[in-house]
């Protein structure tokens, strides 16, 4: 025993995490920790080419390896009808390539061996005869007349076009622009990045040949959605599939989709009759699993001369890679990008998004982006700074002048979002006060006099999370409502079962706190079961910051159902009418006679006893619910970043980062702050170092942590956090969700700071990542294209 607390913790507030008890002891159970009797090991052969025809595959040497049990190719799968699988965007993706490979790192063959080392050895023994084809590495060339057609597997596909989509009123927007005093345009790239959780993807498939039941241990942020997709892919009956997501070493959206490796572990188990483990290495992870962004945006902003922003117009070219596998609600092929109007009160706005295929890995919606809101916020916050540059206005003042005002909520944007609640000026003012904004500007002016480069970057964001209302939102036809189930055992101990799945967010703690808060139960007495489809109700999983807004609401409501039922039981126990009872803390008591009352624990025992209950009231103290959110929730925040730039090298040092977040009611402030910290580090990384670039042959240039740079403790400053609390009016506990806020809001604050620092060089915009080379190039009139290594 390390510590004992006198007062049991029953509600919201800082409380230590239940998860940590095992994790600090090295007793977590991640997928690679799973060991099953007789377990075999799989490894994938991947394409060295970005685009090539497969003439033949010779697996004989691999099959002759003494420890190899099977080698599976696309041809084998074709015979089983499993060569292709559906993506989450109604496209198909090759499980193992049959006709062609379409990106470097694509899955070509699967080896099953007695041990991991032997499987990897045998992969090297497979001979593939490839015929290289012309490559589309640059999305801007995907629609050229002479571009090779990447998806010639799709009937009727004659070019690399995937979709066109628009939002807002074009005519109204054009009219606003035509009459505006000031119009500024900028080309802005949000380059391809990868979420790179420290744990790569993997799975252990165990098909029981006797019962026909498949158990899949897998790195999944959405176990229930995965189960349904496997049922569709493999034709397995859904009740014979059990998906278990054990401890997950970070997800950030990377573990939402289904990868060929998962499917191959299942096929491998079916073929061999034994459990098969597949865990990819880091290069495989970075080359083939879900990337994020790759949005080429042209933004235009219209304003008056004195800085009243009137409208925004955006054209986006979206690079979706070789298979359209983005994970987002069906009706929104560009995710929630149409929240690009940001936090400002505009007269008009319009965007078009065109999605194209390229010879790159599939994905697109990953990395804590809240379904493309990251791109949207980056666009609008960069455009506001571009406008400030042209108007010679202070970027904080310009924002303050244009923010939606508190009395305008609920606020409907020009692209149809209904922002639920907010006090934006208060958050921005708090951030400015914490930063000492005016002092910083003075310091900057003094430094500029001395020729030193210091920058102050401001960004304001509005998120739209908690997808979502069933009538608007589904993925592959699965509505985005979440179930919750709560049982109170006879002795008053509770088990909550939820569909969402922590990848580090601390669900086992915060969801227990929600129940504790509703029922007055100590959180120590509440166990949270999740990550196992046989044990939990259906729901769409953890991504898009949806756990608290959707499953958190379901949890509060299922606890309230328990409370209502407990009232009836208590009324029977006390022989009074339920109407005469009032809830106080953890008990129902008689109004005006608080001595007469029953605690939730006493009620739980009585509910399981022989106590006679009113007609129609079932015994026990259990409840289930399904929560269908009436709207999204809209967290927001104001971020200020201070950087120093080395004039000689272009190197950037982030000196300070001030982050004011409003995510509504905070269940566990400690966990909320942790979520924000992590997202801020992501912002520093994306703004300054992270990029997945390609050369013109489609070679992936970020396939290890030596090439794909992530921020360390030395690049990150000590974060300075502030908060305002504007509860969501429609969420049962007023919470809004916070998991992705900082990742959404912070990149632009860093970029704006760097560009503010080098403003004396006449630089209005430069693309991420602002590496020393990129900054130096921008300062010296030689901007570089960061996403392509083409001289």
């Amino acid at each position, binding site marked *: *025993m*390390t*510590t*004992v*607390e006198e007062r*049991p*913790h029953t509600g919201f507030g*800082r*409380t*230590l*995490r*239940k*998860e*940590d*008890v095992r*994790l*600090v*002891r*090295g007793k*977590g*159970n*991640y997928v*690679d*920790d799973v060991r099953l009797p007789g377990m075999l090991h799989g490894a994938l052969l991947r394409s060295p080419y970005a685009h090539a025809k497969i003439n033949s595959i010779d697996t004989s040497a691999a099959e002759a390896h003494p420890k190899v049990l099977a080698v599976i190719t696309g041809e084998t799968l074709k015979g089983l009808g499993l060569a292709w699988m559906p993506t989450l965007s109604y496209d198909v993706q090759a499980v193992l390539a049959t006709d062609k490979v379409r990106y470097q790192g694509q899955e070509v063959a699967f080896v099953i061996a007695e041990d*991991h*080392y032997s499987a990897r050895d045998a992969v090297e023994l497979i001979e593939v005869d490839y015929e290289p084809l012309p490559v589309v590495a640059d999305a801007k060339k995907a629609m050229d007349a002479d571009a090779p057609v990447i998806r010639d597997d799709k009937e009727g596909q004659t070019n690399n076009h995937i979709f066109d989509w628009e939002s807002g009123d074009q005519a109204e927007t054009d009219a606003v622009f035509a009459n505006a005093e000031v119009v500024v345009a900028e080309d802005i790239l949000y380059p391809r990045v990868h979420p*790179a*959780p*420290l*744990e*790569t993807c993997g799975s252990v498939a165990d098909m029981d040949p006797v019962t026909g039941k498949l158990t899949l241990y897998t790195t999944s942020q959405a176990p229930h959605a995965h189960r349904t997709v496997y049922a569709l892919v493999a034709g397995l009956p859904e009740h014979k599939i059990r998906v278990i997501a054990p*401890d*997950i*070493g*970070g*997800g*950030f959206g990377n573990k939402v989709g289904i990868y060929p490796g998962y499917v191959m572990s299942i096929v491998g188990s079916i073929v061999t009759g034994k459990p098969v483990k597949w865990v990819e*290495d*880091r290069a495989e992870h970075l080359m083939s699993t879900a990337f994020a962004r790759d949005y080429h945006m042209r933004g235009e902003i219209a304003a008056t001369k004195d800085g009243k922003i009137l409208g925004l117009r955006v054209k986006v070219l979206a690079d979706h890679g070789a298979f359209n596998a983005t994970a987002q609600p069906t009706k929104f092929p560009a995710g929630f990008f149409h929240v690009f109007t940001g936090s400002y009160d505009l007269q008009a706005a319009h965007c078009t998004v065109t999605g194209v295929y390229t010879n790159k890995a599939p994905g697109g919606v990953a990395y804590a982006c809240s379904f493309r809101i990251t791109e949207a916020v980056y666009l609008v916050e960069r455009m506001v700074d571009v406008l400030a540059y042209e108007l010679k206005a202070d970027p904080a003042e310009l924002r303050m002048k244009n923010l939606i005002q508190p009395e305008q909520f609920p606020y409907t944007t020009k692209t149809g979002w209904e922002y639920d609640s907010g006090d934006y000026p208060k958050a921005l003012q708090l951030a400015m006060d914490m930063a000492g904004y005016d002092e910083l500007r003075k310091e900057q002016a003094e430094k500029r006099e001395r020729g030193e480069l210091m920058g102050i970057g401001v960004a304001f964001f509005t998120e739209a999370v908690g997808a979502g209302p069933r009538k608007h939102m589904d993925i592959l036809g699965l509505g985005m409502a979440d179930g919750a189930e709560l049982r109170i055992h006879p002795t008053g101990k509770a088990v909550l079962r939820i569909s969402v799945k922590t*990848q*580090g*967010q601390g669900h086992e703690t915060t969801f227990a706190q929600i129940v504790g808060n509703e029922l007055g139960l*100590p*959180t*120590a007495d509440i166990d949270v079961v999740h990550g196992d489809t046989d044990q939990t109700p259906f729901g769409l999983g953890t991504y898009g910051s949806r756990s608290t807004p959707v499953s958190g609401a379901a949890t509060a409501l299922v606890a309230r159902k328990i409370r209502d039922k407990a009232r009836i039981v208590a009324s029977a126990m006390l022989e009074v009418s339920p109407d005469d009872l009032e809830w106080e803390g953890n008990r129902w008591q008689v109004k005006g006679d608080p001595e007469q009352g029953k605690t939730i624990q006493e009620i739980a025992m009585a509910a399981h006893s022989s106590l006679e209950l009113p007609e129609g009231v079932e015994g026990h103290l259990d409840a289930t619910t399904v929560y269908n959110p009436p709207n999204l929730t809209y967290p927001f925040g104001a971020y200020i970043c201070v950087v120093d730039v080395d004039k000689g090298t272009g190197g950037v040092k982030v000196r300070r980062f001030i982050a004011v977040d409003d995510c509504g009611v905070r269940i566990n402030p400690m966990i909320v*702050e*942790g979520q924000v*910290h*992590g*997202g801020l*580090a992501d912002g520093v990384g994306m703004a300054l170092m992270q990029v997945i670039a390609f050369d013109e042959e489609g070679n992936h240039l970020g396939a*290890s*942590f*030596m090439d794909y740079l*992530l921020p*360390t*403790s*030395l690049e*990150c400053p*000590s974060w300075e956090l502030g908060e305002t609390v504007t509860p969501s009016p429609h969420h049962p506990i007023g919470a809004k969700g916070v998991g992705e806020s900082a990742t959404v809001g912070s990149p632009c604050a860093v970029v704006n700071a760097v560009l503010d620092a080098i403003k004396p060089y006449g630089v209005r915009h430069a693309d991420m990542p602002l590496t020393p080379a990129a900054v130096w190039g921008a300062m010296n009139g030689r901007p570089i294209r960061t996403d392509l290594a083409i001289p």
Partner: protein
Amino acid sequence: MEVTINLNGTPETHEVEPRLLLVHFIREKAGLRGTHWGCDTSNCGTCVVWLDGKPVKSCTVLAAMADGRSVRTVEGLEQGGQLDPVQEGFMECHGLQCGFCTPGMLMTARALLDDNPDPTETEIREAISGQLCRCTGYENIVRSVRWAAEKEQGGPVTESETPAEVTA
């Protein structure tokens, strides 16, 4: 070849391939799965263990190189049912989220405090700079190590709000 490694005080002898990495010896042969693997290129540090008292990245050490030597892993931090102060610090200060980098961070933190019982924030940041964390933005890891340092120094530590269930 046969390799014997003193693992957390217990000799582990196994017949291994010469190419077997220490991280795989620990995880697969000895069955201690607290030490994680994350990158193959010595960048992420989730595989950090002690080799003869010094932190090493066990994905870059062959098991054969550790033959006859001592290795300490995260499982060796808790002594006699008592968590090491760095483990407590990580719990107290929310120094972990997904927990995947945590074992490596804990081993580095323990080594730092043994070497420098009262490190500054900068010294802590330097010490963990060869390791990656994707969740915490490092802030709370730094605080966790400071918490442990203060506890070991007998200085003031932040008041715990540990509920009863967060106990061993």
